[in-house]
């Protein structure tokens, strides 16, 4: 009759921003996909940390609808190729750095080292991600894209496939499994069970398709939260390599139910970024110099951080 041995403890995935990026993001990655959409739920602290640590990405998947994350990464010269579904600021305007990078080409190469812009669309990118998450080699596309300039503009991204059932032809995109996926959940337990307090956007699918998934959260909650409301878990923990708690970490984008996007700061950035010098100055002041989120928050103007409150469940 042997003694009862205690169960070894389950390992927490809680990690600091610095450590998560240093340990899980290679110096050069094949591809990056940043979650959230437009000016919402974008894990900006992780993005800023990637820039601080000079992580390079051969391909950035910018869609559905990316904004400042893409703009900053491109401006910092860390992106070689962007698959562009949408990069902009919705009603606030176009992406100043992305614009300049493309409009001021020198010998076909964008001034900041962005070598290629692949014209794409959100639907095809999401179907490619769905295929990646399902282990499918490629995704055949619904009919109609042949009516646009896209297939001709991006012959490497869109290819013709023969439909073995109808005998007709269709366009297809190759499956996408981003090497690095950065996502944001408002809440998560220490094991990575993430809860979306607002829109999930594309992030559950992104977590299923990503090879290395880092989750930035506003607030840690007890594992009991997940056990009491399992249907509320938007991202199951086993998909997540690290849980990174950062207060106001999505700023200047929103974190649904926690805070709205800061359009004062976004405009401050967009105005600064109108010129190369202005962008470099912004990058230094708000991304490279602040050693942590506290310092970043201190430098941000026009803020009533105190007004942020925990979301009620």
């Amino acid at each position, binding site marked *: 009759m042997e003694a009862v041995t205690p169960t070894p403890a389950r390992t927490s995935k809680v990690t600091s921003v610095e450590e998560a990026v240093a340990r899980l993001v290679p110096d050069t990655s094949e591809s990056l996909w940043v979650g959230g959409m437009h000016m919402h739920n974008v894990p900006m602290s992780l993005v800023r940390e990637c820039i601080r640590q000079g992580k390079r990405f051969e391909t950035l998947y910018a869609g559905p609808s990316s904004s400042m994350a893409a703009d900053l990464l491109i401006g910092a010269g860390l992106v070689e190729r962007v698959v562009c579904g949408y990069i902009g600021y919705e009603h606030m305007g176009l992406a100043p750095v992305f614009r300049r990078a493309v409009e001021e*080409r020198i010998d076909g190469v964008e001034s900041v080292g962005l070598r290629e812009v692949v014209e794409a669309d959100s639907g095809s990118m999401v179907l490619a991600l769905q295929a990646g998450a399902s282990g499918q080699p490629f995704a055949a596309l619904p*009919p*109609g894209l042949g009516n646009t300039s896209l297939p001709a503009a991006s012959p490497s991204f869109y290819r013709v496939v023969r439909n073995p059932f109808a005998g007709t032809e269709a366009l297809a995109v190759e499956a996408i499994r981003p090497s690095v996926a950065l996502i944001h959940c408002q809440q998560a337990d220490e094991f990575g069970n993430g809860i979306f307090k607002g*829109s999930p956007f594309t992030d559950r699918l992104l977590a299923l398709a990503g090879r290395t998934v880092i989750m930035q959260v506003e607030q840690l909650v007890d594992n009991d939260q997940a056990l009491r409301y399992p249907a509320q878990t938007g991202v199951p923990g086993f998909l997540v390599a690290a849980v990174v708690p950062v207060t106001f970490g999505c700023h200047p984008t929103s974190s*649904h139910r926690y805070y709205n996007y800061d359009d004062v700061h976004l405009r401050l950035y967009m105005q600064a970024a109108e010129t190369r010098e202005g962008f470099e100055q912004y990058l230094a002041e708000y991304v490279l110099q602040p050693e942590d989120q506290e310092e970043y928050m201190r430098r941000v103007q026009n803020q009533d951080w105190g*007004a942020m409150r925990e979301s009620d469940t």
Partner: protein
Amino acid sequence: MSDDYKPVLRPGSDPLVFFPLPGADQQAEIAKGHIMACAIAHALEDGELVVMGANSLLPMAAARLAQQTHAPNLTIIAGASGGVNTLVEPLVPSSGDYANLVAEAVLQFPEVLMLQMSGHADAFFAGGLQVDRHGNCNLAYVGEAAHPTLRGPGSAGVPWAQQSARTILYTTSHTRRVFVPKVDFVSYPGWNAPTHSAQRGGPHLVVTPLAVMDFSDSGEMRLASLHTGVSLEQVRENTGFDLVLPEGDVPTTPEPSTLELRLLRQMDPDALLTVVV
């Protein structure tokens, strides 16, 4: 954007709201935004499913207005947020805003695209850097691919609008820069698209700050009505191609009714519709 910013609380939205309330003092006037929203609302039918794209302040107001007037069974999908039948309390400028989740259901964004791509939607709303005489829209770039003079955001979900029964085009700037004879890049195909089984319904209506346009049987953009105080000359000067003219006099776009104005102002406490144009 003024610097003397003050955070403002609003119902159904977030504790912090960073944009001020422009035009809150202009409640009195009927703004272009009101006229445009009504023109779009009138083009939506009861029982239809409409999907919003990005920057959808006007179509969102229009769809909610239609729902509150003649189309109670209209289903609204609030674009990026995935909100289904959002109450639009209040109207917000970003399609991904949490305020749009005061709704009956929340779709993951891939599901929103699936609905578009599979042809579930009756109407989708599009615009772009350029719109041409056949209703082609361009969101990619102006100029040549190698040396664009203007880099746009990209085509996003707009190519799939063609799977909707019809597409309603709208823009807040009616200029020759936007209305060009031929777009430099086709993000959304107009009526001159190569015949294609996929072309379920082409561009249906074009709503601008100056006028409302539809398309002739040959698929050319046609002036349908001029907004109050706008002259045909004004529209001609700001359109980069010859619009087909209707038979007889050009009608005036109907002004919003008392009810329509009340509803639009109810859903729009920040009076964004008065400053959107």
